[in-house]
């Protein structure tokens, strides 16, 4: 096996004022031809910096302070910009995370791939090669895709185009920086299979950056685990996944949602929320020209029983968030009944809604957008009760209590949201919702923006609080493993309709609908059961 890439003792500095002096410190790794090396780590661990350094795409603010990178026998840190450009694309290629922004929106995708060929003097083959490449990444009807602009393609299709472009000149090394993170789970599985297939067909070396151990289990030959810019563990995939040595790796693997659907007893039969015949249609288009309609929700009836957690699962665009937002009137449906505690909420006025605002609360997805940056944490938590007539001093005292409940220090009251990490902000958002003492809590993807270890903490906290306060919860997620861990029942949504609803064990154990089956088959790393590390640790 030939050694393609060797990184030795690489140190990359960070600008002054950053939280640590080096983005990457004393990093050594290697990639051989014909293997997939997974670089795993949480956000900020320096894995993307490593990839960008190898590609010579480091921002000027980040100087390389030491070490060497040898690619095909050459020290590429010593190469001129000119020489580096020649290697890039021809010998080493990169696939980026965000397929929506990585393609030029004004250029047909065929032309973009042809451009990659032309830059390296192979433009004359373009007419023949472009359809071949598009076919190689399993895109249907390559000729018509080549003539399309990127906006006509879905996220998965764009990512395939990116991969086709990266493969255009048959590079020896492919670097993929979280190429499936922005994609739905079924598309993710297709892309992972594609990368595997192409890699084994062409014998490339692949450096695959990810934060998801499921993806690692699916695709990796070897694994490098990074934390705070250093490698804490590396080795063969089987060994790292099943017998992790370093405490950080162990913690990460222990935090992976295990996806076990334990049978749970039915909690109660007293309905708390019933959605009947809800319909929401979005219209697009102006006064002139044809109008487009999107049926965001139709035939999505469900009943939420008191004390249970119902998971709404589906891919992006399935209408799960819209449905949840209908319950709190952030979206107003045209039709249907929202029966909460015996009363239909849909026809109520803004004022008529007020008493229900206390009883139904929501936790949002993005911890960075869900708190007002100009309001202190204490005020953010206390303002809800104050609006509903609680004495301000009392509300603030309760806010301190709530912070303790969500395992934050009460000193946080006087601080601003930007002083907290993503996981801490999500707890603050939870405290804000709990301040209203709700009966029904709607959690809209509350952990999907968090790193896996933080995700586990927040999920445990949610489960604990739900039990202690006897909350009913509507939990929206795209991650089936998370749903399995926290939900009593699961409703699977596809294109605005609930296609299957049942107890978690039923849905996971014996899925009835083909779409549910497809979703379950797409969970990455199914062949791997995370080892139970609780005892041996």
């Amino acid at each position: 096996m030939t050694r393609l890439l060797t990184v030795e003792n690489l140190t990359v500095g960070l600008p002054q004022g950053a939280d640590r002096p080096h983005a990457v410190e004393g990093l050594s790794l290697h990639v051989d031809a014909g293997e997939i090396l997974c670089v795993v780590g949480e956000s900020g661990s320096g894995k993307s910096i490593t990839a960008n350094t190898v590609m010579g795409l480091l921002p000027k603010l980040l100087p390389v302070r030491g070490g060497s990178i040898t690619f095909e026998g050459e020290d590429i840190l010593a190469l001129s910009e000119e020489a580096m450009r020649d290697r890039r694309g021809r010998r080493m290629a990169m696939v980026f995370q965000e397929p929506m922004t990585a393609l030029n929106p004004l250029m047909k995708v065929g032309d973009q791939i042809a451009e990659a060929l032309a830059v390296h003097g192979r433009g004359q083959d373009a007419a023949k090669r472009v359809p071949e490449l598009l076919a190689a990444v399993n895109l249907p009807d390559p000729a018509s895709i080549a003539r399309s602009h990127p906006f006509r393609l879905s996220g998965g299709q764009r990512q395939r185009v990116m991969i086709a472009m990266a493969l255009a000149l048959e590079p020896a090394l492919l670097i993929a920086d979280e190429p499936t993170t922005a994609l739905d789970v079924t598309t993710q599985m297709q892309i992972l299979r594609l990368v595997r297939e192409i890699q084994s067909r062409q014998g490339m070396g692949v450096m695959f950056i990810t934060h998801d151990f499921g993806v690692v289990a699916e695709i990796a030959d070897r694994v490098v685990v990074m934390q705070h810019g250093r490698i804490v563990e590396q080795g063969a995939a089987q060994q790292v996944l099943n017998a992790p040595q370093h405490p950080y790796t162990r913690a990460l693997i222990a935090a992976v949602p295990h996806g076990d659907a334990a049978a749970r007893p039915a909690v109660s039969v007293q309905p708390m929320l019933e959605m009947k015949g809800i319909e929401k249609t979005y219209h697009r288009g102006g006064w002139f020209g044809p109008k487009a309609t999107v049926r965001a929700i139709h035939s999505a009836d469900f009943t939420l029983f008191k004390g249970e957690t119902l998971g709404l699962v589906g891919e992006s665009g399935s209408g799960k968030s819209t449905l949840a937002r209908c319950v709190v009137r952030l979206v107003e449906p045209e039709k249907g009944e929202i029966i909460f505690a015996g009363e239909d909420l849909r026809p109520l006025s803004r004022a008529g809604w007020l008493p229900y605002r206390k009883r139904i609360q929501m936790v949002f997805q993005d911890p960075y957008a869900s708190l007002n940056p100009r309001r202190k944490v204490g005020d953010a938590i206390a303002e809800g009760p104050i609006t509903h007539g609680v004495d301000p001093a009392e509300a603030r005292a309760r806010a301190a209590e709530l912070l303790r409940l969500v395992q934050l220090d009460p000193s946080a009251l006087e601080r601003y949201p930007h002083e907290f990490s993503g996981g801490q902000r999500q707890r603050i958002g939870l405290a804000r919702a709990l301040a209203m003492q709700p009966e029904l809590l709607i959690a809209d993807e509350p952990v999907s923006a968090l790193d896996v270890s933080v995700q586990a903490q927040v999920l445990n906290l949610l489960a604990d609080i739900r039990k202690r306060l006897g909350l009913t919860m509507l939990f929206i997620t795209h991650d089936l493993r998370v749903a399995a861990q926290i939900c009593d029942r699961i409703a699977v949504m596809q294109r605005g309709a609930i296609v299957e609803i049942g107890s978690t064990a039923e849905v996971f154990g014996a899925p009835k609908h083909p779409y549910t089956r497809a979703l379950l088959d797409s969970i990455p790393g199914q062949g791997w059961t995370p080892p139970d590390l609780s005892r041996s640790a």
Partner: protein
Amino acid sequence: MKTFWRNFARNRGAVVGLVILVLVLIVALTAPWIFPGSPWDMAGAPFAPPGEDGMLLGTDSLGRDVAAGIAHGARVSLLVGAVSTVVSLVIGIGLGAIAGYLGGWVDDVVMRFTEFFQTIPSFVLAILLVAIFTPTIQSIVFAIAVVSWPPVARVVRAEFLSLRSREFVQASEVLGKSRISIVLGDILPNALSPIVVLSSLMVASAILLESALSFLGLGDPNMMSWGFLIGSGRSVIRMAWWMSVFPGIAIFLTVLSLNLVGEGLSDALNPRLARNRGGKP
């Protein structure tokens, strides 16, 4: 606040602008003591060039001191600039907030109304308004405010449209806060940076508008302003250049300094954009 000043001071031009602006303000505030008496009174021989007759910047065709005119004119120009900006901010923020927050047909109506004002050349409309209401300081402020609010409304609406769908605003909705407290407490404070930047530029353009109106003889006849000084010197510019040039320099420096300060504010309020500009680290 400290980081705000550090980011502001990183833009050298902004600091220079701030210094000039403070100097102009000091001159305006102390004018009654530096140049006691009315600037309309005769102070020396007519057409005295700068430096002669004890007149620093010369005298005009009636022997009035040009320096006194500029100092007293600064009061009028700055006052008109500030007050008309405040008025147009009130109109612009009000309409923009309503349009952006409520959306739907309200947004359509308000924006068509705004476009109505934007399609009329603003200076012509200002002349028309002042001519109808007879030139007084109030009517001038009113006219300037009426022609300069549409950009504010557009900026505020755009900010509100994007902030309205942010999750912290939705969280406030779910908490059951009233519309007014959401608009004033959650959205507006987060939309302030572009408004602050825009308003410093609006003061500058209001000063220019007022000068242009006065130059055309539509200024308040009882108020000495920079535009009036230039206008009155226009017919004799070949024999008494100083009558037009010095007030012109005053306008130039003030407007320039306001623009520099505006850019500095924009850098200080959006430090990330500022650092990218010009590739400076």
